[in-house]
């Protein structure tokens, strides 16, 4: 099976290429078969490969397709390195990607640019697979930029509205800021190790750098910069809510399940660097903690269904960063996987609702959908429960509980990180159920036009099941103790040991987490279902209104960047549109012209003046020669 590894990214690329070349000539069914089929076969190969991996338990699979280039020892290859970490990622990418592609055939059925959509989506899947399968950082960077391009193309998919184009460019440019940091990180790594081969770097780093070495910290922070940009973390998070301008399957695939977690992958992949750079690792944790809180509060105030989910994505990735930052590597990846399931599910449900309501995204215009769309309601509820981490039955509970536990009890954990996570969990469950109540309960406000068909509901059901049972492969040791996932990760990522003192009372914190989560649901029920008047009275106070506005605008980051960077840049650029340097040369030309005009005055045509000029010249020359 390992000889077919290259097919996994190659098939989506091929699909994309064929769709670009012949997409306009194919029928819709043809496009759908090509677009979905290529990802489907990739998913199939991935699952077979994954089963083989589980059976054989090799350290990793490696396949070199060709050598990219070789310049004086700098010789990255187009080569794939598959270990447990990559396999989890490619499983999520291909499998969830396949479900979303399938869903898209129905969702985008009416769209003019059906083939362009699938071409971009396939290109995205291919690039994302390159990103996670790359055996060297340059190829990873290739995928990294490739997904950025696809994200740009798909956010701006409905290009006729300039706002979408703006959002697309914003996403591309902001992520590129992170990419620059990452590129510089790569330069340092290359200078130090003479290669960008990931495994070589990981094995040599501890020999070259001592713990806390300046270079290691620098590289760690620079890589973190890249990760922050891609994953929509503070301070580069502002593009992600706007990215919801794209079609909903795009939001589900790119801006929830896969691309935005590339940062998580990068940090987990380069964990050795972060182990060597405690400062950088601490920065990861702190950024995660702060981001999850800020995004959570913003999510509380949004009315656009997709924007709530977008902020929730930022917040959940914050949890993953928190996990990585405290050294709970496997917990972070576990949460990534579970998050991919339930967030994709939520987005797809949201898409079904939006489609049914004629592209209405405002939750205030929704309500009472529980009756008219039962399948969507139940699957959404499951996803929401998983997001809110309702205890015991949902996968989200197990993954998030692990993070919270290690944020407190891990070697790098602290009470502040734990508290941030706990508060975040509470907010998460509040905004999640706010969404549920506003959308599915209450009075119907908009007529349901198209009840979702089979192609839409099947992926929902599959994802819903995964969102429930996905958690059972990793259960806390004091509760059934299943450690399939962390066992899988063990050869790749180091394990983590909890603080002995706290470990005795672990159940206490689990209960606390459960209570917090349920408490959030209750608060949401109180405000949005039982007595909306209570909420209204709070919202009326001027402080609450100001706070609401502040949170609604995403803590004012957009305005800040606009005023600090975008406007001055555009202003300066436009100021200098005529090129100030050119005026030096035109000035030179003007001066020459001025002299020309001046001297041409002397050419009067009067012969005697010319003679006088000669005389004056002769006198001058004679005088000078006499004086010298």
């Amino acid at each position, binding site marked *: 099976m390992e000889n077919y590894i290259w097919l996994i990214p190659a098939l989506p690329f091929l699909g994309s290429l064929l769709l670009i070349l012949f997409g306009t000539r194919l029928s819709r069914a043809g496009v759908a078969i090509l677009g979905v089929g290529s990802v489907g076969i990739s998913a199939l190969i991935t699952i077979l490969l994954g089963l083989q991996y589980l059976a054989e338990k090799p350290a990793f699979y490696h396949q070199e397709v060709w050598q990219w280039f070789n310049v004086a020892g700098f010789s990255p290859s187009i080569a794939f390195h598959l270990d447990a970490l990559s396999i989890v990622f490619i499983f999520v990418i291909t499998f969830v990607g396949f479900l979303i592609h399938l869903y898209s055939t129905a969702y985008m059925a009416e769209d003019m640019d059906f083939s362009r959509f699938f071409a971009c989506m396939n290109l995205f899947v291919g690039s994302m697979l390159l990103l996670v399968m790359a055996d060297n950082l340059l190829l990873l960077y290739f995928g990294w930029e490739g997904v950025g391009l696809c994200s740009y193309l798909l956010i701006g998919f409905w290009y006729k509205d300039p706002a979408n184009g703006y959002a697309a460019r914003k996403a591309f440019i902001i992520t590129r800021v992170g990419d620059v940091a990452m590129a510089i990180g790569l330069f340092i790594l290359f200078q130090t190790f003479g290669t960008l081969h990931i495994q070589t770097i990981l094995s040599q780093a501890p020999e070259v750098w001592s713990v806390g070495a300046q270079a290691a910290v620098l590289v760690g922070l620079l890589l973190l910069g890249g990760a922050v940009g891609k994953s929509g973390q503070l301070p580069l998070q502002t593009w992600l809510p706007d990215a919801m301008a794209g079609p909903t399957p795009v939001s589900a695939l790119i801006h929830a399940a896969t691309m935005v977690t590339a940062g998580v992958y990068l940090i987990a992949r380069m964990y050795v660097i972060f182990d060597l750079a405690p400062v950088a690792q601490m920065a990861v944790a702190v950024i995660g903690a702060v981001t999850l809180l800020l995004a959570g509060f913003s999510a509380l105030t949004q009315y656009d269904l997709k924007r709530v989910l977008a902020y929730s994505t930022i917040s959940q990735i914050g949890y993953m960063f928190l996990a990585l930052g405290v050294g709970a590597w496997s917990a972070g990846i576990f949460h990534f996987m579970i998050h991919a399931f339930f967030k994709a599910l939520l987005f797809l449900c949201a898409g079904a609702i939006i489609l049914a309501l004629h592209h209405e995204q405002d939750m205030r215009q929704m309500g009472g959908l529980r009756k008219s769309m039962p399948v969507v309601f139940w699957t959404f509820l499951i996803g929401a429960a998983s997001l809110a981490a309702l205890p015991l039955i949902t996968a989200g509970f197990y993954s998030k509980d692990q993070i919270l536990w290690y944020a407190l009890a891990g070697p790098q954990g602290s009470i502040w990180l734990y508290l941030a996570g706990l508060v975040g969990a509470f907010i998460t469950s509040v905004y999640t159920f706010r969404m549920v109540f506003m959308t599915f309960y209450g009075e119907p406000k908009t007529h349901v036009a198209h009840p979702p068909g089979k192609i839409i509901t099947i992926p929902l059901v599959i994802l819903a099941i995964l969102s429930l049972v996905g958690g059972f492969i990793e259960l806390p040791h004091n509760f059934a103790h299943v450690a399939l996932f962390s066992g899988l990760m063990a050869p790749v990522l180091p394990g983590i040991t909890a603080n002995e003192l706290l470990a005795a009372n672990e159940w206490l914190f689990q209960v606390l987490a459960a209570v917090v989560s349920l408490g959030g649901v209750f608060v949401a029920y109180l405000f949005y279902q039982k007595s909306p008047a209570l909420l209204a009275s709070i919202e009326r106070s001027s402080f609450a209104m100001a706070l609401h506005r502040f949170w609604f605008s995403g803590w004012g980051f957009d305005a800040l960047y606009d005023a600090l960077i975008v406007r001055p840049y555009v202003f300066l650029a436009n100021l200098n549109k005529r090129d100030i340097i050119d005026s030096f040369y035109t000035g030179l030309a003007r001066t020459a012209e001025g002299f020309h005009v001046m001297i041409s005055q002397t050419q009067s045509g009067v012969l005697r003046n010319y*003679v006088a000029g000669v005389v004056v010249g002769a006198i001058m020359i004679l005088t000078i020669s006499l004086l010298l």
Partner: protein
Amino acid sequence: MSGAPMEAALLLAGVLFILGLISVLIRRNIIFMLISVEIMLNAAGLAFIVAGSRWVQPDGQVMFIFILTMAAAEVSVGLALILQIYHQLKTLDSDAASFMKG
């Protein structure tokens, strides 16, 4: 044969040259200007003769012959030009031709 003082001869050349020059500068009549140029050329020739005499070399006189030839050619062409100008402008005023400055 007691020789004439060289300085005096050179001064004579200088004075004649300057007189010619003054005339070129103050006259508007083209024929006068031409005559003045002849005076200046003659003065220059005189200077060459002086020098040749001083060093007892024939070169000074050779140069004078060249100047003479040149003066002859110059006068013939110059006069032809004066004729043209007079025919076209009906005047000998050199300033009248100032529109030819281009």
